[in-house]
């Protein structure tokens, strides 16, 4: 099996997704099945490459002018789960996570 329980847990940590214990096994099985399916891409005999870039070039870049879409004061934190004095609030920011 391409993805075992430990690997599923590793990916879940990378993706910041909490999975229940019993879910880990099911997810490992399902992902393995999908990976097995996608392996048939090897039949095309292609080297890893870049996709055709669909986003078209040729459009001019944005000029360095304010565009009037800045939110009104208070709007940013209006729907926030936790905010105070205009700041968003989160549990302590531990330096370990900082890139």
């Amino acid at each position, binding site marked *: 099996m391409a993805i075992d329980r430990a690997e599923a847990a590793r990916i879940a940590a990378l993706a910041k997704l909490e999975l229940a214990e019993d879910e880990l096994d099911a997810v490992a099985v399902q992902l393995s099945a999908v990976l097995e399916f996608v392996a048939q891409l090897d039949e095309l005999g292609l080297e890893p490459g870049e996709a055709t870039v669909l986003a078209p070039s040729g*459009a001019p870049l944005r000029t360095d002018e304010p565009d009037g879409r800045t939110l009104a004061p208070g709007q940013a934190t209006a729907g926030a789960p936790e905010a105070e004095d205009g700041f968003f609030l989160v549990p302590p920011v531990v330096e370990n996570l900082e890139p």
Partner: protein
Amino acid sequence: MTATAPWQRSAREIATAVRAGRLAPAEVAEAGFAGPGARWEREVHAVLAADVSARAVAAAAAPRDRSLAGVPVLVKDNLCTVDHPTTCGSRILEGWRSPYDATVVRRLREAGAVLVGKGNMDEFAMGSSTEFSAYGPTRNPHDLTRVPGGSSGGPAAAVAYGLVPIALGSDTGGSVRQPAAFCGVYGLKPTYGRLSRYGLVAFGSSLDQVGVFARHVGDVAAVYEALAGPDPFDASSRCGAPPDVRDWTAGVRGLRFGWPENLWREGVDGAIVAALERAASSLERAGAIRVPFEFLPGRYAVATYYLLATAEASSNLARFDGVRYGLRHRAADLGELYSGTRGRGFGPEVRRRILLGTYALSSGYHDQYYGKASAARTRIAAEYRAAFGHGDFMLLPATPTLPFRLGEKTGDPLAMYLSDVFTLGANLAGIPGLSVPMGLEPGGLPVGVQLLGPADSEPVLLRAARAIEMDGEPARIASAEEREPAWPGSR
């Protein structure tokens, strides 16, 4: 059969009447929700949010002299709207209010359309049946035990049963075309970049396009015309004037259409094959020329899609973290806040796809999965371009099966993915696709076929669909009054 009640009319009919002062937008906006519409909605559950005062405000504000004056519209719940919540069918955005309208929503309003509510969908557009909505599934109006398709099941169903004449969905791998076929309505996925994605909550950024549902080809054309065009707020939108679809009635005489019969020799329901033949005959009677050819099997597209779309999605959905908006799982530790919020706020299909996409991009696997899929995408796009050397457009199935039953595929993700085998390719290639309803099969279920064309061939696709529309008998869901009394909820 002539439709007389406002909710049964076409968008163009409504707009004409409103412009002439014969109909009031408020009246039309409410009509879909009253009487039969209310009964339908209770069973079908196409709508996630429909605020009566919001639509009254919208109706009052709608300009009366534009192309879609007074036309009620439902938009999929992954399009941002200021007057209704935007949940993307997920708990993680339950009740969330966007401070801005998506560009396509803004253009609809500027064209006079009245937003009456938000349509149900598979969570974050990940699904092919609308069964993965956190707010309950939508049912197929033609058979309430079956799915309407997905992920834009709500908008498709709402057009099918007549709540609204037009609706907007989104199509990343077939999420407009497949539910259109399942519900018996037209569903257009435009050329990538022709409709702005600003305000469409991203799933697979290089694949997503806003799509149009309607019961008439002319309505599809009218909405496309109102919405298409570059948007300075979407850097991936195509610059330059969009294709001109005003000649959608010009016919198909002399046009050639590709007929990739190898794709449906096996594994496609007989009713769909029969519908393909009927569509081809309609086109030939209208003067088009059928050109059989052999095309690349869809399984490569499925594999490619499920690596690229999930990779992009894993990144696009990272912003849902409980910090700035939406659901938050309270925790003393930041890591727990992230994982707890996302683990609880996302449903199982979304979690699966995020994991798959994360894996495909991760160190050590990046080349093997994301890299190979990217190269495969280039090849698939080239195959489509070559295919259009055979014809100005292509006729093929929209789906391999008729609408399946609720619960039939939810246990097998791979089986669900394979139902997109005929639609995914267009997203990978960035080309337009149009689902054309071909009536009901003997069991009463809608059957649809699909037209695909090269980039910017929307005018050709609409002309071809029109030729079929004029020749055949496209499905139209009967109003509650017109159906047999056995319909649950009547009398």
